[in-house]
Structures are given as structure tokens and as C-alpha cells.
């Protein structure tokens, strides 16, 4: 067993109204960032876990996302490659 850090990005599912992202986009426009087309505000989770190898750590975190960390009705998630640590 080794220790791994696995990072997950959770964002509102595309097509679902994200009022937080819209509010941030509006504020950026008022700061003069006219090029901003859209903003999505989500969540960043770092899981520190023991696993046999990086693939197993990522597999575990995928299962965690499906069962708890993300809600598939309203959210998408992306898992970064596991880092030793």
C-alpha cells in the first residue's frame, strides 16, 4: 500500500442553470473582462488515500464520486491523475 492524493473537480452539469457562475460572469464583465463568455463555479476535492497503486486510487475515487462526492443528476466530475503523497 502507498499513499496517494487524488484531486477531483466537480462542476454543475452542462445545461443546468448555474446562477452562481452567471453572477460571477456578470461581475467580471463589470470589471472590464469583456471576453468572458461563461463561468462555472464548482468544487475541488482532494482525497488522501492508501491504495495498491495509482490506478486503484483513481478507481476508488471514481466510486466515491459516483456514490457521494458528486450528484449525477446535477453535477459532472473529473478526476486528476493520482499523485504519490
Amino acid at each position, binding site marked *: 500500500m502507498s499513499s496517494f492524493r487524488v484531486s477531483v473537480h466537480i462542476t454543475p452539469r452542462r445545461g443546468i*442553470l448555474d446562477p452562481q457562475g452567471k453572477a460571477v460572469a456578470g461581475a467580471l464583465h463589470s470589471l472590464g473582462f469583456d471576453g468572458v463568455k461563461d463561468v462555472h463555479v464548482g468544487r475541488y476535492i482532494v482525497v488522501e488515500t492508501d491504495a495498491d497503486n495509482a490506478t486503484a486510487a483513481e478507481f476508488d475515487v471514481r466510486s466515491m464520486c459516483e456514490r457521494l462526492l458528486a450528484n449525477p443528476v446535477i453535477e459532472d466530475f473529473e478526476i486528476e491523475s493520482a499523485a504519490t503523497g
Partner: protein
Amino acid sequence: MKFGIVTFPGSNSDYDAFRAVADTLGETAVYLWHKDHDLQNVDVVILPGGFSYGDYLRAGAIARFSPIMREVEAHANRGAPVIGICNGFQIACEAGLLPGALLKNSKLQFVSAPVAIRVENNDTMFTIQYERGAVLTIPIAHGDGRFTADAQTLDMLEASDRVVFRYVDSRGNASPEGNPNGSDRNIAGIVNATGNVIGLMPHPERALDQLLGSADGIPFFESILATVAA
């Protein structure tokens, strides 16, 4: 009839629900601690409003794994009544007892106010004492009440008459102005396919006395008394 009200860490409407049962209905109410595994032979389970586990991760996401929820799910799967109010609705969705999910209000603000809701289906064990189409005044108090589901699920809910309550404006229309949280199709409450699990964001247990603004919540509880065999 015996009602069990689940208390999660962060529940705050459990006492209101208790009072609705014990004082308004004159029936037996017991609190069920979230760590217990015993439903104490209750006939009806209420998942009350509040902020279980501080709404960490997502509203209801952690409470859904509380030990007692296994028994609550078994109770629901037996066809016995489960009422999810506000945070209880969020927990029921997270637990898969009801379809869809509840998102942050479209205007991003917590809304605590009496709202108008229309009874869309009075042929349920929770609404039989209302007239179909009746407009009720019931308070809401939530920041994450925007019911959403994919279009296919919404169409299925409508086609099977599972939308029980809808937010309406002062003229009784399900318009954007009448919608306090931006929920899909103005949905305020739904039932499951077998009609024994209801989830709603408004608080009928806080509308029991005209002196406090509305008594429109009383028939909600009387309906259960009239339809559920103890």
C-alpha cells in the same frame, strides 16, 4: 396513529413537525435519532426541515447515509408513508426515494416568506383533504430549493400526475413571478411512483394557525389521518 420525526444533527423543524402531529392532530409523535436503527413501529416517517450536517457537500448528501435512513428506505419500500419537508425533500432526493435534485435558488438568496402554492393533485394520501386547484399560503425558508430534473423525468412526473404542488403568483398562475426559487416548471412538491413518499419545499407544519399567518397546512396532516390505516 404514530408519527416518527427523524432528528439529524442540524435539523431545526423537527419540533414544528412534532407539534403539528401532537397538538394539531392530537396523534402520537416520537423523535427518531439519526443514529438509531429502530423506527419504533411508527406508521408515518417525517424527514423534517433544517440544515442536516451543515449542508456540507450538498444539502442532504451526508444525512442520506445516517444509520436510520436504511430503515426509512425500507419503510418507504414497504409502501408506508414518508414525508420529506424542505431539507427532508433534499435528503429524500439524495437517497433516491424521489427523482431529481434541489439546487441553489436561482436568485442565489435564502428566501423566508409565505408563498402561494396550488394543489395539482388531491388524489394522494397527503392532499385528499384539499380541493384540486386550491391555492394555499404556506411558508418557505430555504436557500437550495430549486427543484430540477432532466426533461424526460419532468415529462414523466407531469404525465403520471406526480407533481403535487406548484408555486403560483397572486392570480394563481404558475408564472416565473410566482416562482420563489426558479424550480423547473414551478414544481414545489412531488410524490414517488407509488404515491407514499412526498417531498416538498414549503412547510405545512408552519401553517397551522391563522394567528401566525395561515392554517392551510392543517389539511395536509388531516389527509394522512384520513387515508393511512394505523
